[in-house]
């Protein structure tokens, strides 16, 4: 009796299928081809996303709830509070683990595109904070996250924090608060990595409210940037 039916987290479909068909990451393309300081080609359509991005400010992003606080370690090993990092900025928070070889790299590619866009746009640089947090503290030590930061940051102009958890207890509280599911991969031979998880990226406004959640099918940097600019416009208008 097959007690463990095959299950697949939503990496197979939508953008992932387009990713496979196109041979590139969902957020790859021109944005990855330019060096530090060059703005991503926002008018270009990344493989897997065949539409023009929405006009910032032309739609609403109703608050989904409070972004939870929690204790983490930064890449130097120093203790940091999530709320402390988020305070006063629009934040994009992505949960990943570095041993993942299937969907986490797509989330990280999105963050790198946002990082490049923030570095190239003086209006974004001071208001945006990117946070990548690992849910694999046994492997992803502060030293490992420092290596991630070193390989991904393209300069100091734009802010991008790399975090991990002190222990599984503090991690569990954060993951539960954000609804980020992480399970042991039921397929031990899966080359994707030892953990099974949904990819979720959170957009958080300056007052600490979650304003959007992106799964794999929505990892279009043009879309996330439109949302960030929408929040900035609404905040400047006092809405």
């Amino acid at each position, binding site marked *: 009796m097959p007690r463990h*039916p095959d299950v*697949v987290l939503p990496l197979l479909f*939508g953008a992932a299928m*387009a990713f496979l068909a196109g041979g590139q990451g969902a957020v790859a393309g021109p944005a990855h081809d330019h060096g530090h300081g060059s703005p991503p080609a926002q008018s270009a359509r990344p493989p897997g*996303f065949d539409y023009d991005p929405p006009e910032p400010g*032309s*739609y609403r992003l109703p608050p989904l709830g409070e972004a939870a606080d929690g204790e983490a370690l930064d890449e130097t090993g120093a203790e940091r509070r999530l709320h402390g990092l988020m305070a006063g900025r629009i934040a994009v928070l992505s949960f990943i683990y570095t041993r993942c070889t299937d969907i986490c790299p797509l989330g990280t590619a999105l963050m790198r595109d946002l990082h490049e866009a923030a570095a190239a746009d003086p209006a974004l640089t001071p208001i945006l904070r990117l946070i990548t947090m690992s849910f694999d503290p046994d492997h992803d030590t502060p030293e490992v996250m420092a290596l991630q930061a070193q390989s991904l940051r393209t300069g100091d102009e734009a802010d991008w924090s790399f975090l991990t958890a002190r222990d599984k207890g503090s991690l569990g509280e954060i993951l539960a608060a954000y609804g980020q599911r992480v399970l042991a991969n039921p397929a031990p031979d899966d080359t994707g990595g030892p953990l099974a998880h*949904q990819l979720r990226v959170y957009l958080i406004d300056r007052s600490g409210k979650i304003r959007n*959640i992106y799964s794999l*099918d929505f990892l279009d940097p043009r879309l996330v940037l439109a949302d960030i600019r929408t929040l900035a416009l609404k905040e400047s208008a006092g809405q």
Partner: protein
Amino acid sequence: MDSSIRSLADLIRRRMAGAGRLATTVIPAGVLLAAASVLSPVPVRADETCMSPFMPKITGQEDYVYVWTLGVEGLGDGFDKLVTVDVRPGSPTYGQVISSVSVGGRNEAHHGGFTDDRRYFWASGLDTSRIFIFDIHTDPGKPRLERTIDDFVQATGGVVGPHGAYALPGRMLMSGLSNVKDEGGRTALVEYTNDGKFLATHWMPTAEDPRGAQIEQVADGYGYDQRVLPRKNVMLTSSFTGKANYMMDFGKLVQDPEAMKRFGQTVVLWNFHERQPRKVFHVPGAPLEIRWAWGPDHNYAFTTTALTSKIWLIHEDAGGEWHADPVADIGNPADIPLPVDISLSADDKTLFVDTFMDGKVRVFDVADPHAPKQIHEQKIGAQVNMVSQSWDGKRVYFTTSLLANWDKKGADDEQFIKGYDWDGRELHHRFTIDFKERQLGRAHIMRLGADSLYTN
């Protein structure tokens, strides 16, 4: 064609003949709608290949089928309930009910869906506008009712009849069927967070308030199904009818010419991220279920019209323009077979279409989506509504109920779930559970479950 079908078909033809006197430009829409009212059943989008793409998938053997079931007075406890069926091959309880959790009332149980993390199942009642949220993950073989949303009408600003529950990242997108003002078909899409916090109401475009949408012929403002294709940033919605009709006795409805005019005739294309209606297609005859193709370059979706018995293709041309075209008949439309639920295989090649009146499933080869070809036909029962297939396409499940007041009467009011194997050419029966004999009720929407979705 049995006598009941023949009489309905005759009635519809008479209605259409009468409507034809109004204006030729209105005939296809208004008439077919009127006809549709006779039959349009309320199918459910219900299978592994038809769920929101934003959630984990069971790509192998499923363990359970969850059946959202309408209570019947005098049958068991008489309440709506979520019934769990064991479909684990080799299990000593294979093909049997292993759990049933009642909600303590009758609400016109209808559609439902999982949240994007697949931990909770949202099931709605069309009559009471209540939404029941079941915890699936704690014990997938024995779901439990966790909470109920009782203020849907007030919170949404007057939307009535929560229908499909479609998972988005961290939130649920619900379609309404009606409104509190006149209980007609004008309605809205509604968004909630996964934990049940109301977020927003998006009213369907109408001729009076098109909200920027291009209107082909009419904009009725009706709703039914809602499906998103994120890589194109588009969403489709379809249209059924309002509470005054879906709660009316079927025999009375058929005899009410005004009521029979009040059926949906539109499919709306939206810019999804902006929740902005973009184009209102004229699709007469109550277009119900919508299924986007899965292929990464398949920019099309299918729907079927209950009253006109056609498969429609909504597709994008090489220039980026979207169109809606009828591409095939389902059975003999003159017989009004009433296509209800549909199920598209994961490889986009096979479309299962249930027809309520003759109790049949028809299987179409849709490899060329512009020219579907029927490849199989089989009677499932006296009536059939829902069809759900596994992701691998090897197993297919059927249930029976449309609406409490629209199901057939007497001996033809069969209520069951049946499980089959599909070999690519024929269905092979595996099990039947009689929901009347088991004192359960009217079997409606199905969703598949697996222990391994939640095992750490």
